[in-house]
């Protein structure tokens, strides 16, 4: 569904584990071993207590729809209409994504609907996490 010109992110050392995870079908988050804060996006310091003692773990990939817009003008590599959404992961953090495998309409995209992660390979190095209605088509 995506053309070749879709924006491809450039990983940095502090985010490498995230992109390694998506390549392997895991949506990885970080958790502070001192204060137990779970956070995203990746960084080597806990945003709550500044501890450097943080671990990487695989999230459940389950989320709910927090908010979105439906773009009616395309970014490179996209066909309109397409949703640009923010989802709330079961573990707490939120992330931007696209909701796929459902009509891109306000009626189909209901706030708080249950979602699950779906991985989309852009290049050999980069796979992005998208979300689809939970239990929907594969």
């Amino acid at each position: 569904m995506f053309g070749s010109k879709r924006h491809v992110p450039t990983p940095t050392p502090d985010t490498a584990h995230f992109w390694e995870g998506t390549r392997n079908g895991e949506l990885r988050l970080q958790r502070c071993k001192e204060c137990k804060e779970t956070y995203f996006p990746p960084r080597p310091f806990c945003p709550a207590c500044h501890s450097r003692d943080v671990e990487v773990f695989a999230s459940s990939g389950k989320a709910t729809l927090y908010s979105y817009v439906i773009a009616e003008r395309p970014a490179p590599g996209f066909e309109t209409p397409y949703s640009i959404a923010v989802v709330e992961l079961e573990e707490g953090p939120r992330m931007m994504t696209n909701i796929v495998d459902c009509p891109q309409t306000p009626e189909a995209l209901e706030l708080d609907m249950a979602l699950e992660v779906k991985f989309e390979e852009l290049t050999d190095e980069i796979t992005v996490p998208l979300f689809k209605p939970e239990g929907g088509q594969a």
Partner: protein
Amino acid sequence: MNYTGTAIVGAAESTEMGKIADLTMLGINLDAGINAIKDAGLTPADIDGVACAGVSPVEVSWALGIVPKWLDGTIVGGCSFMLHVRHAAAAIAAGHCSTVLITHGESGRSRVGFLGFGGAGRFSNYTDQFEAPYGIWGPPTTFTIPALRWMKNYGITEEQLAMVAVVQREWAAMHPRASYRDPITVDDVLNSKIIAYPFRKLMCCLVTDGGGALVLTSADRAKDFPNKPVYVIGTGESSETPMVSQMDDFNYSRAFRTSGALAFAEAGITTDDVDHLMTYDAFAHTPLFALEALGFTGQGEAAAFVAERNTAPGGKLPMNTNGGGLSYMHSGMYGMYALQESVRQLRGISPSQVDGVEISVAHGVGGMFAAAGTTIMTNREP
């Protein structure tokens, strides 16, 4: 009411506005700066502090023949100029300089010497990796994302959002320099082209060329200038997150709340004391977030407040009386035009002049709810 000890003694917009084909971004900064220095009855030799956003204060000082003792190149988006006013007030109080020029100019439409909106030519590492891959193409697809959550939470309708644009067009009709002046209806807004659901074209700001500049000095000198002084009484600033997806909560802006509370506390006033309000309207929901965060309405009540015409001509809280970014102009960093209209209202010279304005608030946003700045001003003498 408290005073910061600083006053705005010069204020002007760029000579042309809308489409300026023959000036670069720097050139528009200089054009506006020259106009503001003239408005204050000063010469370059009188200016010893320079602040600007997106272009370098070194460039502006050099090009205008100013020998600066103080420079501020703070750029946090469209509210940068509210931050400059705050920083300038502190610098003047500290004796670091005596007379500050703050300039803004952008070639948002013509893109002459364009350096990117808000001076940002590229994505940050985080935006590149965690927002850009999802088809964002600028503020209409990012600034707008919190709106649906907030609308659902408080039962806000698209008709109410549309009323923001309708009411502001009524103000714009009185301003000869406004880009759009013809009246519009809620139906016009809801039938305008869909850009990013739930936002329609007439709920989104303009893209134009223009600039503006201010001259500030210590309040005890303010009466020596040709125009009615505007005293700075309260200032605030804050930031939240460079990525809209990482806001604390989509029902409010933390940066708005922090900045607004600082400014009202410094001024020693409440929202009841405010006669006139300018709130940065990049999109129809932005001024509503400001009304709620600054405490002019309760949380979730701003949409009804505007739809009931409280901010319209004749209403109890005249707001965005130049027509705002939706109708007046929007070069990219609109905050300067909000400050200019506050100054005009306090001088009593706005084409949409409201009777008896003594206290005006200008509140700006930077980035996509990334930052905020608040300036409270009065024409009452200390």
